[in-house]
């Protein structure tokens, strides 16, 4: 088994994509020890299997992976589970057993019992360490048992939390049909994608009638997994500008993956999708629209504007729209204006949220983040800078691979009003009189677009509203000795 070790030393190509060359930024980027708490990227299974209704996710790993999933996903297992563990046993690890035969046995069973349209293999640290050749095995097995198999290596060695989705979408991008190979004529196919997405069901005619409301532009596909209502909202948002979204990656069903052909425009709606972006650009020869992310009214407006400008459409009424949303949130803004927020770093949504909250009138000393792709997040980082300048507040320091212990010291020192943190630190910080909000809540909240901005503030202000009422009771610090971290 020592052999694995040697092989690993030899193989040094690090998987993480580097779009690299940094533009000169006034922002301050640091890198710490990486001793921070976050979820394993295989957790993406939790939301992706729900999003892609005809899928089955098979996580190939150890008991540790299984136990994590079980605890992280709690509820989901009880409903007809469309994910499972392929638990590796000693025989698999020592390569006494034949990987292909083993996986075949399990996949045949899954096909028989669940009949999904696709099986997604999720690689884990263990498959990386024992160098199981999932990408090599999948096409053979796919041909033999006649069911699409998509391979995503969402392991905890290379990625953090939400990046798991990125690995899956990047793998799925390869499966998107090209216009000319699509079985149906392009036009009809696209319409199907839209109609299924808007849940119009039978009412295709209605959509056709509306075609005329769109400008004539090159096809645009959005990528990122969002709850269906948010997909509808963002699609409608662009429709208001006459911009037609011809499909989403992922779609509700694997069989309805959007057509993506060379020259299509693509845009990612989440900050953690840099790998998918690269895949779409390099492999599918798409043109990436690098925009800020549609989080907060400011971000959503910038997002719409950027897409419109690339597609040559003159956006209408955005300023009034944004102003109205802001006016509607005034009650929440009052609570947070002038307060400070600290991101410990967990889900890669940190920069977008910080930018929005700074626009709301908060200050932000630090943005911790697991991984920073300065190019894919370029437009967002620029908007962050611009926002700080316009609001007249200092730029946050951005700490990649943070160290939670050091961060807690800084939180004490800087006397922060609100900490957005992973679940492991929330209770201990609260016990020390520090307001916290779980970062995972933002991962799962419906927060994209104009209409949902208020929901973000509902989350952000909740600890402050709650703790304000407790303050009068003197229930502030609930640990005896002064906190030793």
């Amino acid at each position: 088994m020592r052999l694995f070790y040697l092989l690993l030393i030899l193989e040094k190509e690090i998987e993480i994509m580097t779009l690299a060359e940094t533009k000169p930024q006034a922002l301050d980027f640091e890198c710490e020890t990486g001793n921070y708490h976050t979820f394993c990227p295989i957790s993406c299974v939790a939301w992706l299997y729900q999003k892609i209704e005809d899928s089955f996710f098979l996580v190939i790993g150890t008991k540790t992976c299984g136990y994590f999933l079980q605890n992280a996903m709690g509820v989901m297992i009880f409903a007809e589970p469309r994910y499972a563990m392929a638990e590796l046993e000693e025989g698999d690890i020592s390569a006494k057993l034949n990987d292909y035969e083993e996986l075949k046995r399990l996949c045949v069973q899954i096909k028989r019992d669940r009949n999904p349209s696709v099986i997604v293999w999720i690689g884990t640290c263990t498959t990386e360490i024992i160098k199981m050749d999932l990408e090599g095995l999948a096409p053979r097995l796919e041909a033999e048992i006649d069911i699409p198999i998509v391979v995503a290596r969402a392991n905890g060695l290379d990625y953090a939390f939400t990046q798991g989705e990125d690995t899956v979408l990047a793998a799925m991008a390869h499966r998107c049909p090209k216009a000319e190979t699509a079985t149906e004529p392009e036009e009809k196919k696209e319409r199907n994608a839209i109609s299924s997405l808007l849940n119009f069901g039978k009412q295709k005619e209605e959509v056709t009638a509306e075609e005329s409301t769109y400008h004539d532009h090159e096809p645009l596909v959005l990528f990122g997994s969002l709850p269906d209502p948010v997909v509808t909202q963002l699609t409608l948002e662009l429709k208001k500008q006459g911009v037609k979204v011809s499909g989403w990656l992922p779609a509700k069903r694997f069989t309805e993956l959007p057509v993506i052909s060379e020259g299509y425009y693509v845009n990612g709606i989440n900050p953690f999708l840099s790998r998918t972006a690269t895949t779409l650009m390099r492999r599918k020869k798409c043109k990436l629209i690098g925009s800020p992310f549609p989080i907060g009214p400011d971000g959503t407006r910038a997002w719409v504007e950027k897409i419109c400008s690339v597609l040559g459409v003159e956006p209408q009424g955005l300023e009034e729209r944004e102003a109205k949303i802001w006016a509607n949130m005034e009650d929440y803004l009052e609570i947070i204006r002038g307060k400070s927020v600290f991101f410990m770093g967990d889900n890669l949504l940190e920069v977008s949220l910080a930018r929005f909250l700074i626009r709301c009138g908060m200050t932000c000393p630090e943005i911790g983040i697991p991984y920073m792709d300065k190019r894919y997040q370029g437009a967002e980082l620029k908007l962050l800078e611009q926002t700080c300048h316009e609001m007249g507040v200092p730029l946050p320091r951005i700490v990649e691979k943070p160290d939670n212990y050091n961060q807690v010291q800084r939180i004490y020192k800087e006397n922060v009003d609100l900490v957005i943190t992973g679940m492991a630190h929330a209770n201990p910080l609260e016990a020390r009189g520090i307001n916290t909000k779980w970062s995972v809540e933002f991962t799962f909240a419906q927060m994209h677009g104009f209409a949902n901005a208020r929901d973000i503030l509902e989350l952000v202000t909740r600890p402050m509203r709650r703790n304000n009422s407790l303050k009068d009771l003197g229930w502030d610090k609930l640990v005896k000795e002064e906190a030793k971290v």
Partner: protein
Amino acid sequence: MKLAYWMYAGPAHIGTLRVASSFKNVHGIMHAPLGDDYFNVMRSMLERERDFTPVTASVVDRHVLARGSQEKVVDNITRKDAEENPDLIVLTPTCTSSILQEDLENFVERASLSTEGDVLLADVNHYRVNELQAADRTLDQIVQFYIEKARKQGDLLEAKTEQPSVNIIGMSTLGFHNQHDCTELKRLMTDLGIQVNEVIPEGASVHNLKRLPQAWFNLVPYRELGHMAAKYLEQEFGTPFVDITPMGVVETARCIRRIQQVLNEQGADVNYEAFIEEQTLHVSQAAWFSRSIDCQNLTGKKAVVYGDNTHAAAMTKILSREMGIHVVWAGTYCKYDQDWFRQEVSEYCDEVIINEDHGAIGDAIARVEPSAIFGTQMERHVGKRLNIPCGVIAAPIHIQDFPIGYKPFLGYEGTNQLADLVYNSFTLGMEDHLLEIFGGHDTKEVITKGISADSDLAWANDGLSELNKIPGFVRGKVKRNTEKFARERGFVEITAEILYAAKESVGA
């Protein structure tokens, strides 16, 4: 390879960390990939811990894989030692990182050259044992380490205490109702005039482990955790241990009688019979409950029991002996210790099931259609599907197993709690049944297609389908607000766009 959907017991490192972090001022270091520090979340969230979980990951990533992790592990150990001055640092791999077969023993040796505190490598085979076995082994290992250490330093405290005394072994963090059990057992010992010498590992200091030999006996209430340490102490110091789980009226009495015997053999002269009788007949409500008319109605009802060894065995005995309930089968997921389980329950149930596959257990429940299930959270969900009530009696732990109020499973207060649990489980079933007969459940869809009764508004299909995607508990409010919005603006049909416009304008 094995297709798995659910596990009743966690992986080995969870057991090791449960023991390590139960001690005061002991730090756990996991040699593990980034995503494996889920233990911290569980402890912080489930136990509602106020303190930071004393566990750090020494992260295994690509760079570590390429260079080896010696430097990093040693760094992390010495860093924690300096930052938090723990008495002991326990290093553990996870099953994933153990594949690397790095020489962790060697890292520990190197690190301990420069640390103030002690450093130990958890001596557990991460591929072969589960959480429960690893916890038992780790506790044993830590106890042995400190006994040996005290012996070498000559400050081992071997002389027995003047008054009868006990060590309670096996209370740990993230254990099923452990905190309340612990309080209850301490009370019981006080009532019996027995001094509590040490409770381990929960809340104990490793420095006090040298005091363990002072106790007259060791109490090991749980089958899963504490046995190895108790056996070691018996072997080294001849300290007897009592391993009868004091759960239920009968077993609690049996446990107390055994304690009496153990004490009297060492020259004490105690008689607990009067105490047992008083508790059984007048203090605990459980015996009276068994005699009451309520319980009479449960006679002969069918139940199944499933859980870890401790709780499944005890529950089977209680149902069958104390309440006259017919246990059709009793099962455990502690496969590694199945002989013990068979021996304990065989005479109290028709069939014994040893299986850790939740699907098979679900099928076994469906097969016999019991009136009630006593099992884990998983069986509770099976029960929901089959419409059979379920009382939860065993781990895997869940937030509901950490109630704010006092709910022990052991001792005399435990007997009351169990009586409630049994009674509520069965009556719940009965109530459900009645409700169904009289149509009491409101299962109608709140939103029906088309026009709502008193409304001038129509919901377009897309609007309706969007509305239906909104979580049930706010849907009514969103619907009302949207209709108000539409009415004010003179729309007659509500589309998805109008729904979201309304949401924006009123923040519905």
